[in-house]
């Protein structure tokens, strides 16, 4: 068990820079999830830590030791690959015990260790099978077995669930979390699936374009994203963005001409920005009966036409068009909205985020939940 630290890590392939100065500390026993769009450098980060790629500059620590120049086999890391990389010519038992064999453990102890690991993962009856005879979920478990049997300092998992069907993925996700809790091994889990990230992580690291965008507990990232990228990446359906012009010191005007007034202290944060984007989560928007007459100053109301309704069981997703804009709403009370009808949407600026149009940074934690949501 060990903590991990990345300090100013840079990596490029040829002249394409892939990792652009990453600083990150991971605590002992923590389960950290790297999330980001495809190609942002998640796998590269894992491979750098594992020693499968060499960094251009920067330093990496596992525990107290600098690992930059240590060979992969001596870093005491176990990695689970996306396609598991199980050896087709070995049985399940041989696959699981491979690392121990390479380290010269004698056969008797090895068999005992393999049996123990197999029973932990429910693989006892499969030990003599070959990988090709196993289902996807079973292969996944064998890969886990090969990783945990050596009791390594760090687990690295590169999109380990992406080859499984949805149901199995949920089940394995829960198993991985339980196992990690039990073994308390520092783990980095890579995914591009935000549900996996939100449910598994002690902390999420959002990566984009080779840089860390934000690090924090799932709920913190959800409630107070530092920029438009993080806000847009987490949450399903995605947060709604609405363009707004500054028409007064503390006044914003929406494309349809509606004005909202911001409290003075928040207006200050805007300083001299002329254009911003308002971000509002689908579940923060209500569908209301009719245009409310007693409107609060900082409530925005729209009329829009419903294009699609999806039912998630207890909740509904209502997609509607407000002019050119598609707006997603997640609600338990759809107030009789049907596809093709006109509805009134309403949300309070208290629940919204403001982002600078030019660089996407979050200007204000306007949302009340942001303040109480930080963990």
């Amino acid at each position: 068990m060990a903590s991990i630290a990345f300090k100013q890590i840079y990596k490029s392939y040829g002249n394409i820079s892939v990792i652009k100065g990453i600083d990150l500390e991971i605590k002992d026993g923590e389960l950290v999830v790297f999330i980001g769009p495809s190609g942002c450098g998640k796998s590269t980060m894992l491979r750098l830590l594992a020693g499968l790629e060499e960094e251009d500059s920067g330093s990496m620590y596992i525990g107290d030791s600098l690992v930059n120049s240590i060979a992969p086999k001596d870093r005491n890391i176990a990695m689970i690959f996306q396609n598991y990389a199980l050896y087709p010519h070995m049985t399940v038992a041989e696959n699981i015990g491979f690392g121990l064999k390479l380290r010269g453990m004698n056969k008797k102890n090895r068999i005992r260790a393999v049996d123990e690991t197999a029973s932990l993962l429910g693989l006892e009856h499969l030990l003599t099978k070959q990988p090709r005879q196993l289902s996807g979920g079973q292969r996944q478990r064998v890969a886990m077995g090969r990783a945990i049997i050596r009791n390594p300092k760090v687990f690295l998992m590169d999109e380990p669930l992406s080859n499984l069907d949805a149901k199995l993925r949920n089940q394995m996700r829960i198993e991985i979390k339980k196992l990690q809790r039990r073994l308390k091994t520092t783990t980095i889990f890579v995914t591009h699936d935000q549900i996996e990230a939100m449910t598994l992580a002690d902390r999420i690291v959002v990566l984009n374009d080779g840089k860390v965008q934000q690090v924090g507990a799932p709920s913190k990232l959800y409630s107070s994203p530092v920029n438009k990228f993080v806000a847009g990446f987490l949450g399903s359906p995605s947060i709604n963005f609405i363009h707004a012009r500054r028409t007064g010191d503390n006044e914003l005007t929406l494309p349809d001409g509606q004005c909202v007034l911001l409290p003075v202290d928040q207006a200050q944060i805007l300083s001299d920005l002329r254009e911003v984007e308002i971000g509002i989560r689908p579940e923060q928007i209500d569908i209301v009966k009719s245009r409310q007459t007693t409107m609060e100053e900082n409530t925005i109301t729209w009329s829009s036409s419903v294009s699609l309704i999806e039912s998630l069981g207890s909740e509904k997703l209502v997609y509607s068009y407000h002019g050119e804009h598609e707006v997603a709403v997640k609600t338990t009370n759809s107030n009789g909205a049907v596809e093709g009808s006109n509805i009134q949407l309403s949300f309070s600026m208290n629940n919204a985020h403001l982002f600078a149009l030019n660089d996407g940074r979050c200007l204000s934690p306007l949302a009340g939940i942001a303040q109480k949501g930080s963990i």
Partner: protein
Amino acid sequence: MRDNTTTHGKKRLVKSFFNAEHIKAWLYLSPALLFLLLFTYYPMVQVLWDSFFHRPYGADKELFVGFDNYSRLLNDENFITAVKNNFIYAIGTVIPSIVIGFGFALCLTQSSRFKNCIRSLLFFPTLVPLVAAAALWMFIYFPGIGLLDYYLAKLGIQSTDWLGSPDNALYSLMMLTIWKNAGFYMLFFIAGLQGIGEEYYEAASLEGAGWWQKLRYVTLPLLGPTSAFVFVIALIHVFTHVDHVIVMTLGGPMGSTNLVLYYIYQNAHEFNDLAKATTATVLSVMVLLAISFFSIRTMERGIHYES
């Protein structure tokens, strides 16, 4: 119930045999099939048939002699020598050329401009016709002034009669064969090595494997099907190529480089003992059939390594 389905199945089979699709398929196949029958299977059967007949010197027609030809053949010292030579030749060329080809492949798997150059150089001997290669190696082996002796003399080693001495000749031919084939086998091994996913090596690195252990536990087992294939190709080479014997030694000196195929050639065309040639052909075809049967089985066994 079971019977019912089988008769049903039989009927369906008969029906489908005569349906339009099937007839079309047979029509498409027929040209290739015709030539295969005409030039491969028919001669094989004919040769087998002929191996039971013999026309003694002066007789005007062939007589059925049963297994007489076989016992004549097996009692022919020259044939036994040829088989022994072929055996030594097989072991002494197949194993070294495969090992060398594999070694080349290991060094040259990753592509780079330099390595591609080396690969072409090593592959070059394969492209040279065996007759030309044999002529070339005559110069190399020429006693005293040949390339080999010339350089050995610089090391202070006396000139050797590479092709003229019964002790050396077969081994000299083997050198040529290894030189010619190793590059060919290298190509198969390169293809095989490139088919092994990088993640198998990465996983092995993290599990703690060094270079040797990766070779031992990952590369070699995963190359199983490739090796079986190359092994069979190499064995077939051994039985089907004698151009160099004809060019360089004519089976001599003292039968020391006589191989089975050359023995057949000699009996058929020089000694006019067609019956013996035929019988020896039957035996070698049987060996080749056994090899190809064995090879197909091993390759099929190798298939499940994929996925």
